[in-house]
């Protein structure tokens, strides 16, 4: 395989993840579509290949941090990774008074612990080469609390923002950049249940200055920018892509 760039996208079988994977494939990257659900990863990879891109699926459970790190190392040994996109995440909602410890642990285990150790694995792979990009998918919840009882999720995404900033500073000057993208509300599998409630969808849209929900490829475009040479002076930045919602 002769490609200059290889990107790994976790949660690549999901809504935002597949959008990111498609954009990165479109710019010419070989994309490793990683997902807990290998079938979904395979479908996204197949769609990219059918579109003329280069992709392959991989099963990656980022909650199992050691296996995920080993998986990333194995992929990197085969095709050195130039971009790693930490997109896999869980969302949960419900009143704070009802959050069970196991639910808290499950969300934090994926969103924070899983992301942290995959960032670590990516840096271990990239630092020896002195080149590479890590892009962590944060959220508007990294900056402000959700309107819909999502304390655990909001907490986790605030942590992902700080993982991004702290890691970026620590490795600054190594040639590896670490950035984040903070999507606003998009129509994906994570949000579809909420958005199926017409009232919520309308409310969200009226609160978004651009007057519509975001599309996954718009997150992909932000990832593509941050992981390109066009962003060579950008590290530790969280690029908010929310239709102006946080403004």
């Amino acid at each position, binding site marked *: 395989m002769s490609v200059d760039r290889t990107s790994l996208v976790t949660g690549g079988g999901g809504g935002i993840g597949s959008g990111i994977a498609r954009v990165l494939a479109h710019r010419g990257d070989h994309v490793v579509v990683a997902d807990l659900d290998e079938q979904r990863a395979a479908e996204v990879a197949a769609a990219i290949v059918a579109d003329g891109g280069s992709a392959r699926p991989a099963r990656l459970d980022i909650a199992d941090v050691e296996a995920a790190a080993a998986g990333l190392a194995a992929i990197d040994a085969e095709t050195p990774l130039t971009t790693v996109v930490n997109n896999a995440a869980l969302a949960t909602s419900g009143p704070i008074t009802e959050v069970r410890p196991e639910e808290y642990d499950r969300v934090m285990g994926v969103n924070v612990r899983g992301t942290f150790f995959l960032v670590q694995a990516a840096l271990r792979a990239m630092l020896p*080469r*002195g080149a590479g990009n890590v892009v962590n998918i944060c959220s508007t919840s990294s900056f402000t609390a959700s309107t819909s009882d999502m304390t655990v999720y909001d907490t986790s995404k605030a942590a992902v923002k700080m993982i991004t900033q702290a890691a970026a500073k620590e490795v600054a000057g*190594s040639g590896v950049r670490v950035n984040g993208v903070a999507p606003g509300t998009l129509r994906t599998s994570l949000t579809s249940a909420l958005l199926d409630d017409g009232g919520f969808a309308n409310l969200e849209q009226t609160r978004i200055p651009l007057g519509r929900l975001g599309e996954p490829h718009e997150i992909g475009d932000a990832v593509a920018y941050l992981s390109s040479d066009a962003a060579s002076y950008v590290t530790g930045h969280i690029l908010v892509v929310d239709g102006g919602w946080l403004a």
Partner: protein
Amino acid sequence: MTPTAPPNDSPIRTNPTVPHDTNDPLTAPEPTASGHRLGEPIVELRGLRKSFGDLEVLKGIDLTVHRGEHVVLFGPSGSGKSTVLRSINMLEEPTAGSLRFDGVEYGPGLPDEAVVKRGKAIELRRSVGMVFQQFNLFPHLTALENVALPLRSVRGLSRAEAEHRAAETLRSVGMLVRAAHYPRQLSGGQQQRVAIARALALDPKVMLFDEPTSALDPELVGDVLATMRELAESGMTMVIVTHELGFAKEIGHMNVFMEDGQVVETGGAELFSAPTSPRTQKFLSAVL
């Protein structure tokens, strides 16, 4: 003493205090004066002499280093401590006396002993890592390449294997983040840590340090000492020539005061507080 944790798994700054494996009274050797239980002897110098022309710089050195032991050599300039260190890996060939490493004789041997097994200096050097006052990194190679080079040339690893191993070793000294930097882009302390990684990557049985912090600005000494401390805690056998006597007191199982090509006095940490020889007392009162 087997290492309690491989250096790869011991990030420098968490600084875990790993106790030495001294719990089994049946298998643990006798403790030294400093309370450290010794492994088997690995370096044995007996009556070691070295002359440069008419000048005899080592006048019969007896010294035993055990596995897992941290031996510190200190004394005034010209006392012969660096020559002892350089003899251990045959950078200086002894004029007379016995140098045994891991049971194999490398020196001329003792007059009254038949040498049964004699090794080659090149094999000895593969088992002994050495860190110099000057870091001696190749300026045209990155940190990673500096560490990987001997893995390829000495160990015969493939480029990919060597670079993987080099990255792991740089991690162990906290320098992975500077792996792609050239020596000119690194501080002296960082260069020295890369030099330590270069020696460690070859998996030596003993590490020799020849005044590893003497060329550093004072504010850079701490990181190098922290790296050495971590290495010591991992169970590495170390012989160190240093003027950092505070550090010596902290990690030295056996401290050796040398003067005029001879060992004057040895001891644990108490050597610094209560030296018995007037020569040691005089030296310490001048430097402490």
